């Protein structure tokens, strides 16, 4: 053991310099030089003011905006978290039922069978930036009546925002959609 202590200590110091020093600095250097926004995260700006991060969902509770998914941490991006409720938990199921009822009150024209499940279930991170195209469509009637816009106009806007990557589910970024909605 004694024989291996000195090389092991030296190895630890070298490891620190190599991983924490050189490896991180190289990646950070590349990020600073060429990555979007110097590696600080892509921000979304309105009139030169930062209103959010493209990747990080934010709270949209007002009826005039497209609402995102419910969040266990109210979209606090300094403390991410899911609900961690089990599928048979009676409290959890009560919460889902009341989310359905609330949605139907605010969206009286939507039939219950059209309400997509993600609008009443909480995401894993509590910061999900996206909803499915269906979940955006079911909110159009409400927003049209609050904002006095035509439904056709809003449908076109949602269609413009549907991202269908070559792999992975189609989704709509709620923040980008709402930024454009404000411009209508």
């Amino acid at each position: 053991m004694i024989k291996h202590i000195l090389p092991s200590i030296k190895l630890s110091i070298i490891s620190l310099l190599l991983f924490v020093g050189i490896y991180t600095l190289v990646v950070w250097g590349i990020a600073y030089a060429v990555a979007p926004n110097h590696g600080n995260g892509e921000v979304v700006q309105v009139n030169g003011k930062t209103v959010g991060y493209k990747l990080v969902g934010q709270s949209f509770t007002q009826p005039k905006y497209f609402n995102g998914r419910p969040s266990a941490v109210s979209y606090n991006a300094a403390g991410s978290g899911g609900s961690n409720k089990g599928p048979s938990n009676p409290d959890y199921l009560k919460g889902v039922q009341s989310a359905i009822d609330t949605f139907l009150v605010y969206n009286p024209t939507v039939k219950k069978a059209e309400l997509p499940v993600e609008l009443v279930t909480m995401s894993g991170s509590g910061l999900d930036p996206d909803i499915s195209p269906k979940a955006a469509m079911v909110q159009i009637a409400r927003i049209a009546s609050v904002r006095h816009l035509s439904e056709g106009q809003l449908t076109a806007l949602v269609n413009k925002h549907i991202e269908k990557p070559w792999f992975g589910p189609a989704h709509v970024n709620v923040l980008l959609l709402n930024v454009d909605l404000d411009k209508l």
Partner: protein
Amino acid sequence: MILNTDILEIIAIFAVTVALAIPLGRYIAKVYHGERTILDPVFNPIEKTIYKLMGIDPAEEMNWKQHLVTLLTINVIWYPITMFILMNQNWLPLNPDKIPAMSPDLAFHSTCSFITNCFQQHYSGETGMSYFSQLVVMFSMFFLTPAITLAAMAVVFNALRERTAGKLGNFFNYYVKSITRILLPISLIAAIVFLFNGMPMTFHGTHTFTTLQGDTANVARGPLAAFESIKMLGLNGGGFFGVNSAHPFENPNFFTNMIENIFHILLPIATVFALGFYLNRKKLAWMIFAVMTIGFLLLLVPAVFYELKGNPAITHMGIDNSLGNLEGKEIRFGTAASAFWSITATSSMNGATNCMHDSFMPLSGGMQLLGIMVNSLYGGVGTGILGFFVIIILTVFIGSLMIGRTPQFLGKKLGMREIKIAVIITLLHPFLSLVGTALACSFPNLTNATLGNPAFHGFTEMIYEYTSASSADGSGFAGLGNNTPWWNISCGIVILFGRFLPIIGAVAIAGILGNKIYLGDSAGTLVTDSPTFGLMVFSMIFIIAALTFYPAMAIGPFAEYFSMPH
């Protein structure tokens, strides 16, 4: 519905992984064999400098006991360093968000969990760890712990060669090469890919601004691109943020999700093929890969099926449940890819999550649990193949006795000592998981209030916690409020035993075998690379897992399943 795009995505991820793992396995075998590779001109001078600074001779060979002493020495050095940093991060530099020091029991658990590659986390990264701790502790452990197990694996490979040898290479040499030639280059490439997919790489603290609807928002950031690549590649799995790879900064889109998911099982599969190339026994490698994959698929298919089907209790409420069980999942990954990830995470002992396991349907959560219970389907970096090696030894022993032959593996006779070690190692994991859970159930005043869900599901949370600790997986049913002295101390102890004893056992068996006379195979030897033997290994795994864990599965996931509407 059956073969929709969701399923095709999963098949694609798996196919790409295997396609990459085979050449990588060949490369890994070359690295530990000391054969020439095209990157020698780059790595040789770097390694020479490291050896010179360390003052060691990489050609000086060690026997298996010296290897184990070296392995433990490195861990002993890092233990107090890690513990000190975690308990003093409040005043140490690089703490823009004023994160407080960890309590002693939390620091104990975290240290046990980090130096063992388990990375079970009883804190949430945004609020529990400063940038200094993330950098010095996490980055170091992310490289160190997989390198240690890869080196241990190289020792075992070396011992199984067709010869009689007590000297099995140099531990430091294997260790350094694992980092310079395998972990570091691949991580660097992946980190750059991640950067261009929007992953932040910054040392600025939390950003506060006003949202579109007029609320104040705080967004935590960090040096994520460099962090994620090695977190996934080295099967470390400790999240920078509390929700791990479900966080949009840790996993921005489906493409990064694919890469991270490939990394889950890339090295475990590659090391299986590396064994085949190293010993020139490719059929043996394919047999192992086939057994692992069949077991993996048996977990995967039910998990994906029940997640896509969604929660029947919610279907009964009359809404559109066609996207499946989305509680705890992200829209950009979807239900199928999240379920796939969760099974790769629990069969590979990575433990990084992109969704909340606690909110899975009873049987799909049960499949995750079964993955960490079985603990040998793909398995961790190096430890996966080591664990499987121990099971093969047991199977050879039982199989040979069944047909009345001398137990012999790769030309070496198996003796009583090896079998004793193999039996102890195999029973250790069920013992730690089940005794831990039994103790937790016996002290309801300490554990009851920490459960995140009532009834059967609450029991599953407890058994999952200990099984995850013992198998070094590190994922969790996160509803469990596990930052209490009870959970911190008991899980910390389980982690230490669950990690080091199996490594010591596997290296010891291989070392003892290496010292024995090489006999070669004869017509009377049990063939160990045939489908028949594969079936026997599979039965062995099934019997051990089924007999030891079935009662626990019955009280947890199965009972919850039968108590729900269908």
